């Protein structure tokens, strides 16, 4: 099959010397564009599993059931909210600051008619775009669940996720990817270091502060009590799964696969994404070995993710060397931010704030190293989205505190949320630690 195709093209090139390469027709481009959204999209979907593994592995076993429930719950809620409210609030008739209130429905009738495909080569299936964007908003929501683990009420958290995915994320998304005021200013965030990761990070920060730390984590005398995770191999596998998912996350953000240039771009994106993560791991290994005399696996995992978040704002333009630098610096910021949060008495169970917020800000700034994006505009985007999410998420946390309560009782927290909120142990056959 391949041989005859090559011979045909070779023959065609002899007859028509004007065009050496046959560009794909519009319908073929439509197919590949849609395929890119779908395949990259379901790869990103697996990040929901990755987050779940990472978070469950880093909490104590008495909270593993609740953490698992939070993860599958928020992914599902995100998927429904984005259909009912979020997508159109982010993309439909964006007026600069906000989209429209309407339930989304699939509709390719403008480009697929009885006459076949009548669109251009930049087209894609409407549902494929919805699907791809949906898995992104789910990623943003799951960032919050790790930071506030082990002391937030399950139901309260799920309600927060619904509001984050249905309203907060889509509105700031409309400013950028929806074509609103920030994108008009030239704000550049390829796959979402700010739009996805920092948004999750800010909401995680306000949550961690307003909900408060786990009981016993910080002493009045300034002491910090570590609460080691229950399953580090699971956390490691979760990190690998997230790393894998990131190829979909960054690669699919090319938003097209209908030409050789697009596919080459996606390939470069995969390369830079991997190198940034790898640099993140190595930097974290070296840094923790130097700082603490021992390599900290959990920091190496955070380092990989910090590198991935950092490259997410611009995974295409950098050279591999620059990608390694961006990823490495992101990881270094994470390694120093983790103990700094502890000193500030902000209890972030999994390091979500250093990884997604701190490294997300760095990644958004680092865009200026490889493109002609304006640093001022990048900063405007970082600050305006940050302010918006801090204010709205804080309001929601406080409202939920008044209406539903944010935390379980102290006894429930000590005996483990699995017992009090789910009545279901994760490891009933194993002896439990206090």
């Amino acid at each position, binding site marked *: 099959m391949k041989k005859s195709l090559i011979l045909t093209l070779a023959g065609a090139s002899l007859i028509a010397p004007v065009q050496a390469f046959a560009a794909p027709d519009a319908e073929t481009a439509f197919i590949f564009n849609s395929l890119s959204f779908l395949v990259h999209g379901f790869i990103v979907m697996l990040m929901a599993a990755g987050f779940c593994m990472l978070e469950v592995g880093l909490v104590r076993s008495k909270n593993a059931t609740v953490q698992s429930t939070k993860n599958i719950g928020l992914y599902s809620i995100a998927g429904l909210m984005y259909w009912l409210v979020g997508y159109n609030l982010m993309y439909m008739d964006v007026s600069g600051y906000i989209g429209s209130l309407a339930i989304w429905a699939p509709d390719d009738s403008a480009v697929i008619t009885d006459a076949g495909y009548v669109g251009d080569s930049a087209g894609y299936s409407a549902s494929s775009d919805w699907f791809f964007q949906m898995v992104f908003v789910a990623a943003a929501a799951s960032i919050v669940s790790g930071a506030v683990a082990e002391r937030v009420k399950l139901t309260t958290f799920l309600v927060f996720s619904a509001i984050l995915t249905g309203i907060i994320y889509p509105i700031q998304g409309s400013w950028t990817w929806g074509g609103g005021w920030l994108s008009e200013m030239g704000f550049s965030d390829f796959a979402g270091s700010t739009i996805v990761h920092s948004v999750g990070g800010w909401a995680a920060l306000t949550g961690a502060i307003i909900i408060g730390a786990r009981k016993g984590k910080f002493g009045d005398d300034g002491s910090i009590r570590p609460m080691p995770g229950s399953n580090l191999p699971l956390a490691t596998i979760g990190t690998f799964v997230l790393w894998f998912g990131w190829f979909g996350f960054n690669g699919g953000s090319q938003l097209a696969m209908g030409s050789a240039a697009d596919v080459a771009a996606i390939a470069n994106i995969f390369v830079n994404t991997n190198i940034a993560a790898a640099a993140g791991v190595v930097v974290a290994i070296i840094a923790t070995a130097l700082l603490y005399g021992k390599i*900290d696996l959990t920091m190496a995992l955070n380092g990989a993710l910090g590198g991935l978040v950092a490259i997410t704002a611009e995974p295409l333009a950098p050279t591999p060397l620059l990608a390694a630098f961006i990823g490495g610096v992101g990881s270094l910021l994470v390694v120093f931010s983790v103990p700094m949060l*502890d000193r500030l008495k902000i209890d972030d169970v999994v390091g979500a704030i250093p990884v997604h917020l701190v490294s997300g800000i760095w990644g958004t700034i680092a865009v200026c190293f490889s493109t002609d994006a304006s640093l001022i505009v990048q900063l405007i985007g970082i600050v305006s989205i940050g302010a918006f999410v801090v204010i709205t998420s804080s309001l929601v946390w406080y409202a939920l505190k008044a209406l539903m309560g944010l935390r379980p009782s102290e006894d429930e927290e000590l005996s483990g949320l699995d017992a009090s909120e789910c009545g279901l142990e994760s490891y009933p056959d194993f002896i439990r630690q206090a």
Partner: protein
Amino acid sequence: MKYIITIIQPSRLEPLQDALAGLGIDGMTVSEVQGYGRQKGKTEIYRGTEYSVNFLPKIKVECAVDSKLAESVIETIRETCSSGRIGDGKIFTMDLSDAMRIRTGETGLSAL
């Protein structure tokens, strides 16, 4: 009869089992415990914060023996489980007033 409770390093359990079998002791109860004595604990570091782990994993071995055998059992345990380092463990000997085999109702030495 005597009831002997021994706290040993986990790595010595299998050699101890073999050594006691050689004496004719073919039953024991083993549990995973944590404890410390002069060995104290150790310092670990998690995400930049140091903390002390005061309890170390140990194995507790319990067996009921004929009083006449008790001394040789204790000596065997000591030989098998001693490495010369702090943390080897301890042997406690208690008087056992009676024992019963559940299946048959036998008591006394024939229950052991």
